[in-house]
């Protein structure tokens, strides 16, 4: 089980990931697939300072994620994959990244979004992306930390 968690979180690497999910899943590597970040060396170097010394950190563009993940898999790493939006998760899935469960951590409030949980708000595009994921065999769970009960949306066959 090399990919231990796939998470949609607009904040990418932050406290919930480092302090709760990393130890909970016993992951030793983090893959952050985000186009903007892959091109910003300043933010990348700050993010690298945020993970514990034993955890390997990979940044990549969305289209390179599948290759990076299969490398990590070959090295026997237990990986957490982070993307910033539901659309990005769909892009990855279409690009050949295999996952059958996705966790939604934080999606910020904005005008016109619907509240799903106190820290997750869906825009119309999010509903569409998640429907696509569910019809392609991916179950979705809204959950900030492993300690929460969360809300699940099962896959609708695949």
């Amino acid at each position, binding site marked *: 089980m090399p990919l231990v968690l796939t998470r949609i979180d607009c904040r990418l690497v*932050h*406290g*919930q990931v480092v*302090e*709760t999910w990393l*130890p909970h899943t016993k992951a030793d590597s983090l893959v952050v697939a985000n186009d903007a970040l892959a091109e910003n060396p300043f933010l990348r170097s700050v993010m690298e300072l945020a993970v514990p010394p034993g955890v390997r950190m990979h940044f990549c563009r969305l289209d390179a994620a599948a290759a990076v993940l299969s490398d990590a898999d070959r090295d026997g790493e237990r990986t957490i994959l982070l993307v910033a939006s539901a659309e990005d998760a769909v892009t990855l899935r279409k690009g050949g990244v295999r996952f059958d469960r996705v966790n939604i951590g*934080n999606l910020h409030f904005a005008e016109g979004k619907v509240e799903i949980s106190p*820290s997750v708000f869906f825009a119309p595009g999010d509903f569409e992306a998640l429907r696509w994921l569910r019809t392609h065999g991916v179950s979705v769970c809204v959950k900030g*930390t492993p*300690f929460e009960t969360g809300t699940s949306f099962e896959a609708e066959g695949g």
Partner: protein
Amino acid sequence: MAWRFLLAGFLGGLCYLDRTAACQVMLHRPLVVATLMGAVFGNSSAGAAVGAVLELFYLARLPVGASVPPDDTGAAAFAGAAAAVAAPSTGLDGGSFTAVLLLAVFFAETGRVADRFVRKINGRIAHITLESVEKGDLQAVEHGLQAGLTLFALSGVILSLAFTGAGVSVAKYLLPNFGPGSRMEFSVLQPVLPLLGAASVYSCSRTERTAAVFFLTMAMVFGITLFLRWAG
């Protein structure tokens, strides 16, 4: 008694402010709050004794992102007051000590619900602030913040009053109903409580050497404590 509650409300409000809204200089920790409330109700060392155990219970629940951890400040206000009031009449026996700490859970969870509620109302305040700023009023930011602070403080004062009140009632009316026999029986659970706290620290730690270091120190200190007890 009235002045004691007045003081408890005031000090509790301050400690509650430190929890989220202001400073976070750890005045809201159970050890501090329980000792303080113990002092207010006449026995600071009884307060500190329950505070030292309560301090560690919820350490592993971090205030990260939108997740609101159980309210150990409120639990400590209850436990500190209860311990102080129970202590002079009966001497804080193991049974009462255990009962106070176990009952504190209820207040930790109640306080957490209140905390969430305050944060929800703050959403309204933030919304109004945004609207006023939109209209060109910069000072609205300051007013919004002050409103939020006031709300946090108010809820802190109310919770402190309610929880210390509950603490005093439990110590005065509930605990005296149990005789020495029941207290002895209840106190069998006492050794378990500090270990729950120790386990919280253990699960916060999680380095490669944690297990070795933790249990080695535990064995050493256990031996020394036992030796001192039997030798002295």
